[in-house]
């Protein structure tokens, strides 16, 4: 896969491209029953983030939760004009429960931007993205970036139920065409989604795919990329220690072009990999 442009809008300049950004919480409100949107005002280094990168968040200690390690969160919104960053998160365990307690004015210590994000081939005409659950958070800024570069964006959002679908607005505002599927009405079956994409491809050829949030969607994406001979990328998750490539806790097996398997760090070598590199789970 040759890459000639990256999703990075502004080159992170200066001696320290990453920092422990001391951000100020603007809002932290529920988006639906499971997800919340955390908006913060961030210092300059934080604002150099680009699609697919993440921040490592220091979660506060609360009456019930004492998360020791930081928690990784994809950058969901990069609003450089207002100097704001947005995170879309699902309340899962103690770290995210603790994040929930942050209110406007509180400080959020966010190390980043971290990792290698999406690398959009120059001249891409039509990006198709398929995502499920919180994977949407990771793809939203890619949609905006691609649209800004003049590419058409088709986003397929998958969820268990229609009321758990999110980010339609965020994606449409970014200029994406949005298709929603869900398990309840059966529209989210991979083969159906594949057919849907084939139809779209037949109309306006897709030349780049991105995915995040589900093994089945990764398989589907990998298959279609092979079918069409186009590049595809996936944002991978792993439990993290440091987030800075130092502890080697977050490794996943990755296959190189010759099929040799190697452990790579999701936080430093990723979290975005080629769909062909990441071995199946």
């Amino acid at each position: 896969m040759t890459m000639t442009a990256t999703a990075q809008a502004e080159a992170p300049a200066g001696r320290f491209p990453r920092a422990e950004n001391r951000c100020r919480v603007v809002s932290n409100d529920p988006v639906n029953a499971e997800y919340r949107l955390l908006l913060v005002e961030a210092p300059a280094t934080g604002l150099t983030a680009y699609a697919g990168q993440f921040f490592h968040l220091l979660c506060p200690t609360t009456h019930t939760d004492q998360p020791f390690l930081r928690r990784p969160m994809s950058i969901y919104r990069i609003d450089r004009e207002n100097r704001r960053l947005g995170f879309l998160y699902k309340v899962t365990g103690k770290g995210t429960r603790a994040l929930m307690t942050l209110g406007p004015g509180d400080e959020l210590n966010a190390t980043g931007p971290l990792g290698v994000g999406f690398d959009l081939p120059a001249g891409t005409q039509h990006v198709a993205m398929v995502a499920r659950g919180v994977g949407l958070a990771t793809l939203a800024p890619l949609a905006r970036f691609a649209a800004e570069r003049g590419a058409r964006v088709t986003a397929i959002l998958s969820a268990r139920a229609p009321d758990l679908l999110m980010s339609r607005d965020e994606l449409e505002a970014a200029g994406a065409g949005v298709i929603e599927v869900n398990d309840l009405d059966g529209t989210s079956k991979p083969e159906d989604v594949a057919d849907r994409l084939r139809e779209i491809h037949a109309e306006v050829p897709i030349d780049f795919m991105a995915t995040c949030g589900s093994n089945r969607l990764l398989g589907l994406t990998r298959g279609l990329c092979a079918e069409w001979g186009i590049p595809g990328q996936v944002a991978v998750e792993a439990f993290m220690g440091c987030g800075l490539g130092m502890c080697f806790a977050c490794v996943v097996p990755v296959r190189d072009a010759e099929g040799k398997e190697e452990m790579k760090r999701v936080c430093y070598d990723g979290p975005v990999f080629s769909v062909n590199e990441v071995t199946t789970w």
Partner: protein
Amino acid sequence: MVDLSVTVGGVRMKNPVMPASGSIAEGMADVVDLGRLGAIVLKTITPDLRQGVKPPRVVEYTDATLFSIGIPSKGPDYLLNHTVPFFDKFGPPVIASISADTVEDFGKLAGYITDPRIAAIEANISCPNLRAHGRAFGMDPVASAQVITAMKANTTLPIWAKLTPNVGDIAEMARCVEGAGADAVITANAILGMAIDAETMTPRLGNVVGGLTGPAVKPVILRMVNQCAEAVKIPVIGCGGIATGEDVVEYMLAGASAVQIGTTNFVHTSAMEQSIDWVADYCTRKGIARVSDLTGALMLPGDQPSEQRGAVAL
């Protein structure tokens, strides 16, 4: 002006704070001014190439972590051609760290990486992740001494012996490696631990056992540093559970000549720099001219007025 410099096991450092092996990598340079550190300690390498153990590799506690990584290693050539050049440019002395499966390989590897850009070599005889249920070189005083002897025979660089805390008598281990010619001891590596998921009835780590690190281990390692410092004449480097400048002072009072910060770097990247500043302030405030004066300056009960200190009648 407080003189923060220390000379430890043949290495002169502008301050006593360095990272513990395996707790920084290239990524740290994106966030922290590595030029401010007393030394830059590299992650352990082995003669062979290793991918490390099966994930999951980390479990989290209130103020500790249980890691089992298994020393992924790109070998000595990568170290000399990539890692050392990368870290050499920041200024502080660069300390390599090696591990191997046999005494001979320890010796050979030490010789192989002997290089003017490396200021000293740590002998990681204590890594708890390599052996099932954690038997390690460092649990055997004879094998530990042999490792040091072999390394000294193959290199002119100072050798720092990194002890394992998983022994009954750490002072004895310190004496053994001192006898074999070690230039300093590092007390200590991680304490072996295990984590179980009651719901799945399985171990939480891919490797079943891992090394307990982070603030929770401080009382144990502090005690061991004190025991080592009383047992040997070579400098003791404190390592385990250090998170703040106050911790650095406590370790030095217990007998350490310098310290290494590990797990804390994963959570607070600025911890090393902040610790250096805190220690400088502390010395200023206390009228201590040289930070090295702190080493072993703990006043034991015999040295002080023996009043009851645990209760006050009101």
